[in-house]
């Protein structure tokens, strides 16, 4: 297959994806950094830690994939690369169709604006126009269960309310690829259930879910494939039960090593 075949909606492709980060505090804030194109160099020096090392993954439309791994294994980096927020140093990352991500709870919100205004902003960030958001607005507001709080600046919202708003927007944007990091765990059971139903609907329609979480029961419920990352590499890719077992072994050996 040619490497530049356009992806079908919902398809996800990582080919030899490699990315490292500079951990020096002043990495980008120096004149030298500026003229060496701000840390774009990919060499691995002691100050550069690898986040992804030669990761190749192919995920088909309608798949539900959980990514697990210890802290610093490259889970969040994988999502950010797929979302197109951070670039790769080597390799290729591509998603087919519209990618919607929930990576940080408060990202993309502006605190001084009402829930309603933030719905428009978030929609606009994903390239929707006013009419397209108008059409979805009643459903989003109803799904969020925020009631009259939708007119109140979101700086007054609790974490839970923020989560409900973020999720309600994300699940109404007709995503072909949904990238979700951890946040699902914050909501109450009832709302979580509602989200999972809504996500399942999208998946039934051919959308793909990639979920990063330390909550293994959430992964068991939502995913049918598990990828285990360790030190930026894929160490397991397959069935859920075996994947979670592999992950538990990793955590166990780490605990034993530190004892």
């Amino acid at each position, binding site marked *: 297959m040619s490497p530049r075949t356009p992806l079908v909606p919902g398809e996800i492709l990582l080919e030899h994806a490699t990315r490292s980060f500079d951990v020096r505090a002043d990495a980008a804030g120096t004149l030298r*950094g500026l003229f060496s194109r701000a840390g774009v160099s990919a060499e691995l020096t002691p100050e550069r830690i690898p986040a992804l090392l030669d990761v190749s993954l192919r995920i088909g439309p309608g798949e539900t994939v959980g990514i697990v791994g210890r802290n610093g294994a490259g889970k969040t980096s994988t999502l950010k690369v797929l979302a197109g927020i951070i670039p790769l140093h080597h390799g290729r990352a591509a998603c087919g169709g519209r990618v919607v991500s929930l990576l*940080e709870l408060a990202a993309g919100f502006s605190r001084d604006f009402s829930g309603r205004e933030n719905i428009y902003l978030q929609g606009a960030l994903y390239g929707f*126009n006013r009419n397209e958001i108008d059409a979805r607005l009643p459903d989003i507001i109803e799904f969020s269960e925020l009631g009259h709080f939708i007119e109140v600046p979101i700086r007054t919202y609790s974490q839970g309310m923020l989560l409900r708003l973020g999720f309600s927007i994300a699940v109404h944007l007709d995503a072909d690829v949904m990238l979700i990091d951890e946040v699902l765990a914050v909501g109450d059971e009832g709302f979580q259930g509602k989200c999972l139903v809504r996500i399942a609907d999208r998946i039934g329609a051919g959308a793909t879910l990639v979920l990063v979480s330390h909550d293994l029961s959430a992964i068991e419920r939502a995913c049918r494939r598990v990828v285990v990352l360790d030190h930026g590499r894929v160490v397991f890719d397959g069935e859920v039960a075996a994947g979670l077992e592999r992950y538990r072994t990793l955590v166990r050996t780490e605990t034993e090593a530190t004892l």
Partner: protein
Amino acid sequence: MLAYRFLFTQLVRRELRQKYKGSALGVVWYLVNPLVMMGAYTLMFGAILKVQNIPDYPLFLMVGLAVWSFFQASLTAAADSLILQGSLVRKARFPREAIPAATVTVQAVTLCAVLALVTVITLAIRGTWTPWLALVPVFLVALYLFLLGLALAVSVLHAYFRDVLPIIQAGLLPLFFLTPIYFNTGHLGYVERHPWIATVLNWVNPVAPFIEGLRAIIYAGAAPGVGRVLYGVLAAAVALLVGRTLFLRMQGELAVVL
């Protein structure tokens, strides 16, 4: 890019509202601040220092001051813009140029409001009705695009290198005094003895041709000069080209550094 037009208008409207949010006078502040500045400078340069003998000095001053304020406010606000909107950059993949572009556009709204007011008053008092007024929009569009280019450059540079904004602020102060806002370059005593200084002041400083051109039309009712029109258009084209190239080359790591 077209799909994100709504994002751009959203960003502009939000910033316009945020600017004077919760203040009693609201949008009126757009005009109050420049008028207060005009008053102060008229007193300083027109009465106390008496830089030059220029008729209707407040009106002479105001055209230059409006352009300068736009230049200064756009540069400083654009430098901070990506940092202030870092949360959006970390959220999704969208054309990030929209952020500094929205900032400059908000400043352009103020410029247009102030300049419209000044033009109406100047025309009423000095009667400078000429066909040259048709060239005002040309200067304004060129000035807007010129700053759009500079904004793209400074916003992305400042995101990586946080000394850019202090450097700009330090540079703007002396530049203000070298810009023909409160004086006419040709009529300075020293310059009359050394004409080359006028050339430097008028053409090396990229703000000067915009100010001189607009002032020739609005204040003096005269031709702005082909050179100034060309200079403006060329400055806009170069700034846009350089700014956009720099932005696109450097924007990749924004989500990492913000």
